[in-house]
């Protein structure tokens, strides 16, 4: 058991090291010191997840069986990287400008944010990747067995199913921990990428070490080794020419369309210029990975007994030579290859499954997009975690039921052929504006069906799905439907047969249906943006400027992005529109940016649907379509200049309109102000005059009546005085003649004082406070601040119309400000009144029970301005919510 225990220990130690690497990288990134994490070298190394355990173990086996054919798997991606200027650069640019989260997201986004397309791509991707994950589990398991073979103390490896289960569970845990730590707006995972880069180095080093050992340690030098190669069973160039070309093409296609490759190539890409380095560095990596494959294979064939599994030569050759250390290193290399592939594939698939399948279903079940309660982020994260577990479980089940029998290479190629079906819609989407959603969908369905029918089902062997009878004579004896000789053209290699027919018919159907159908406006817009991504990285796509409720949008955004991020995003957007506060106008530009922000978390189609639900309709304006119609570059340039100018004009006009609106309102208010003052003064005066006349003229008043009437005169006189005081206070504050009495104090004391002064605790309004957070030293005019708090608490007391009214006081610090939020659970203030409440005499309701003259909030606003802070209405909190912000220096100075 000794060696096996050692093996397990080494595995655990290695995984622990990866944890540490990922953890440190995440921490460095969180602290903003992650620059080095995002070097071109790390990017290039992360691409190496292309080389899975299939490469590490399988390539040698492949070479032992078929000579140099294994090279096709590396030549294809090399050609793609060499041609980065054509395709990859464009994909990466599109991925960054459109905030693409997966290949399903890209295809759905390109074809008018269609969710049906996204669902289909996701399903194909899951089906195509499952065997691949099973393959990784199998290779780790059989590497354990290989060790066991050379360890006399172990009779037989305990239970390979259990090993696979443990590996799958461990990988699921790692992926959940580092792949779903946060809902990153860009779906980037610094920790995971760093861990993968480390694994890339380990596997290259291990394979090269075994190669060096074989060439110089066993073979006796380069020329000797070359001679041995020529003398071996695979000593002559022998190639099925169709396979050579088809496999190069297939691996090139898969390099672009494998979900995990798309994840590292596009989604995790941080800087387009990293491609420049990767364009030569990654081909170098592939070259080194494949350099020693043939020598190892030939040595294995020579040294190992007949009938031993060539897929394990990388391990068994060093073991047979007694090089246990080298074997261990080689084992770690294989382990690295398997784990890094599974982790990234699980992340990529779980993003797709949760964004395109789980979330839309969940949103429908919970009654639709925006008005859901609670924080959606938890749901998204949970969905991701469940999906990761689900993907690995599928892989494990496939492993169990396929029995792990087939040679590694054939399983890998079946996967390749499946995901390669994405190539026509992907390439068509970024190079051809005429490609339509229906075309893409039809092509994909055709390609997928052919792949399943002619390659995937037969691969399970004659006992499971496809009987030998069907293979030989076709279903129901229909000859031209023979799975491996479609349309009567037999004699082809099955793989070449499938690749040719599926991709050919996929492309033909895609093109023909695209030509025959008419795209929806959203498709045309997205098409123009994708195809011409370099001409205008600007954004002509979007929403018509309908009347959306900004406040509803904010409620939704808070639930997806989190309150802090959503509020600062809305505030920023409002500021660029020249508006104060948190609610920007729902301009098409704003909606589009919001949608993109959301799509980083839930995918383009879902984000579009959610915004659409609030907007009421998803339409595209005439201007947007005009932008699409512009064909010539000149027109583009000219119109973009005009666009910039008109955008500026629009902005100025909006600011002017806002200013004008405010002036008009102010002048109306000025009139109303005089009329109000008159009313507010005359009302108490009426009582005073009337009762004083009664006291003067009426005879025979009782003692009680005298007392009562004098009392009324007195209280009405006090009311008058208070009104005059308020008016004077406001006037002094407005003219800036007030002298502040700055003192040291503690926020909690000020709040306590305000709560006591209003006497709410006895009056039925429940206070919700977190006293520990209130304990903040402040340096300000404590009496004035208390006056503001008293006003807000008293307002809640008067206006909160909930059955069980409560008022929450929340204290937070952000961006150098101390924020005190007063949020009640009433019905809040309608958004058309929110701009007015801080004006004088602007009581929202006409209720007299307000008692004051409607000057309270106006005074609060002036006080906070004098204290270098602010008071604002915070929309979208459920009830009426006011935010008092005080500069932190006021708090710092007190410390």
């Amino acid at each position, binding site marked *: 058991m000794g060696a096996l225990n050692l093996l397990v220990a080494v595995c655990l130690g290695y995984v622990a090291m990866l944890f540490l690497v990922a953890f440190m990288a995440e921490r460095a990134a969180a602290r903003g010191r992650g620059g080095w994490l995002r070097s071109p070298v790390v990017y290039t190394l992360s691409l190496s997840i292309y080389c899975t355990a299939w490469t590490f173990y399988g390539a040698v086996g492949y070479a032992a069986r078929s000579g140099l054919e294994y090279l096709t798997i590396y030549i294809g991606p090399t050609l793609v990287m060499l041609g980065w200027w054509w395709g990859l650069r464009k994909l990466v640019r599109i991925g960054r400008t459109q905030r693409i989260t997966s290949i399903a997201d890209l295809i759905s986004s390109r074809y008018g944010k269609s969710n049906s397309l996204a669902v289909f791509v996701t399903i194909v991707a899951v089906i195509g990747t499952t065997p691949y994950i099973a393959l990784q589990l199998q290779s780790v398991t059989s590497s354990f067995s290989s060790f066991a073979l050379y360890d006399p103390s172990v009779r037989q490896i305990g239970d390979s199913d259990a090993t696979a289960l443990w590996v799958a569970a461990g990988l699921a845990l790692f992926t959940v921990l580092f792949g779903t730590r946060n809902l990153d707006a860009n779906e980037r995972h610094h920790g995971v990428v760093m861990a993968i880069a480390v694994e890339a180095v380990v596997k290259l080093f291990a394979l090269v070490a075994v190669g060096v050992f074989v060439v110089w340690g066993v073979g006796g030098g380069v020329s000797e080794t070359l001679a041995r190669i020529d003398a071996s069973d695979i000593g002559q160039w022998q190639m099925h020419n169709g396979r050579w070309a088809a496999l190069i093409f297939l691996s090139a296609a898969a390099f672009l369309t494998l979900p995990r490759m798309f994840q590292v190539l596009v989604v995790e890409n941080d800087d387009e210029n990293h491609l420049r380095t990767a364009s030569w560095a990654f081909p170098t990596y592939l070259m080194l990975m494949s350099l020693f494959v043939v020598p190892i294979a030939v040595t294995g064939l020579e040294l190992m007994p007949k009938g031993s599994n060539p897929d394990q030569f990388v391990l068994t050759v060093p073991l047979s030579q007694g090089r246990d250390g080298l074997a261990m290193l080689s084992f770690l290399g294989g382990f690295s290859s398997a784990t890094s592939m599974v982790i990234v594939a699980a992340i990529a698939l779980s993003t797709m499954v949760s964004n395109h399948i789980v979330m839309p279903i969940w949103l429908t079940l919970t009654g639709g997009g925006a008005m859901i309660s609670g924080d959606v982020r938890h749901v998204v994260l949970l969905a991701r975690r469940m999906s990761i577990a689900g993907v690995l479980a599928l892989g494990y089940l496939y492993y169990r039921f396929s029995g792990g029998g087939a040679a590694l290479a054939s399983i890998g190629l079946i996967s390749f052929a499946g995901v390669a079906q994405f190539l026509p819609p992907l390439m068509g989407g970024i190079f051809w504006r005429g490609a339509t959603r229906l075309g893409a969908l039809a092509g994909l369905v055709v390609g997928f069906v052919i792949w399943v029918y002619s390659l995937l089902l037969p691969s399970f062997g004659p006992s499971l799905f496809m009987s030998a009878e069907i293979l030989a004579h076709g279903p129901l004896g229909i000859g031209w439907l023979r799975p491996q000789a479609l349309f009567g053209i037999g004699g082809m290699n099955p793989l070449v047969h499938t690749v040719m027919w599926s991709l050919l018919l996929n492309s033909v159907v895609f093109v023909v249906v695209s030509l025959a159908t008419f795209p929806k406006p959203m498709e045309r817009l997205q098409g123009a943006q994708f195809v011409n991504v370099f001409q205008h990285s600007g954004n002509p796509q979007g929403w018509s400027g309908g009347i959306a409720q900004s406040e509803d949008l904010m409620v939704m955004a808070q639930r997806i992005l989190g309150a802090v991020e959503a509020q600062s995003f809305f505030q920023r957007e409002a500021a660029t529109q020249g508006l104060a506060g948190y609610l920007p106008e729902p301009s098409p530009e704003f909606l589009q940016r919001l949608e993109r922000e959301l799509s980083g978390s839930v995918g383009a189609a879902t984000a579009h649907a959610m915004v659409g639900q609030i907007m009421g309709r998803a339409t595209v304006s005439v201007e947007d379509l005009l932008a699409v119609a512009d064909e010539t570059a000149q027109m583009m340039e000219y119109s973009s200049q005009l666009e910039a100018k008109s955008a500026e004009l629009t902005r100025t006009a909006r600011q002017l309109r806002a200013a004008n609106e405010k002036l008009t309102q102010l002048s109306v208010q000025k009139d109303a102000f005089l*009329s109000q003052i*008159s*009313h507010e003064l*005359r*009302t108490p*005066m*009426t*009582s*005073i*005059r*009337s*009762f004083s*006349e*009664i006291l003067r*003229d*009426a005879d025979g008043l009782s003692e009680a009546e005298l007392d009562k009437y004098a009392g*009324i005169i007195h209280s*009405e006189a006090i009311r008058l005085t208070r009104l005059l005081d308020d008016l004077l206070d406001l006037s002094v504050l407005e003219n800036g003649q007030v002298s502040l009495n700055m003192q040291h104090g503690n926020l909690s004391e000020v709040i306590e004082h305000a709560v006591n002064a209003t006497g709410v605790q006895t009056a039925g309004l429940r206070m919700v406070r977190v006293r520990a957070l209130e304990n903040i030293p402040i340096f300000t005019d404590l009496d004035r601040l208390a006056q503001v708090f008293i006003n807000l608490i008293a307002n809640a007391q008067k206006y909160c119309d909930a059955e069980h009214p409560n008022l929450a006081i929340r204290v937070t610090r952000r961006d150098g400000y101390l924020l005190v939020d007063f949020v009640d659970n009433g019905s809040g203030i309608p958004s058309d009144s929110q701009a007015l409440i801080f004006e004088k005499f602007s009581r929202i309701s*006409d*209720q*007299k029970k307000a008692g004051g003259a409607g000057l309270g909030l106006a005074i609060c606003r002036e006080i906070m301005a004098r204290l270098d802070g602010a008071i604002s209405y915070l929309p979208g909190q459920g009830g009426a919510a006011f935010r008092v912000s005080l500069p932190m220096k006021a708090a710092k100075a007190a410390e």
Partner: protein
Amino acid sequence: MGKHVLVIEDEPNIIEAISFILSRDGWRVDTHSNGHDAVSVVNAKSPDLVILDVMLPGRSGYDILSDLREADRTRELPVLMLTARGQSKDREMAQKIGASRFMTKPFSNAEVLEVVRQLVP
């Protein structure tokens, strides 16, 4: 059974004052303090005179008056309007709708009595 007046006004102290003056003059005084159901209260109590404030919670005095003037039963009912916003446009508005008399707050008690006596001799 003296003459019957209904005072529709939301300031409790002003109600108290008017009630005091009129009841000393031999009136039976009913009061009501919001605008929502003022018209139905008038119909229910069928007073000889209504004193109506302009700024009422729920519904303005002008709206209530125009409702009263549209119904046959109350078309000729004497209505004295009170307002605290003594601008000339308020007076014109009141006359247009059909107020019998119009007074600005603050008023003198004697003046109120005199007007009331004129309206319901």
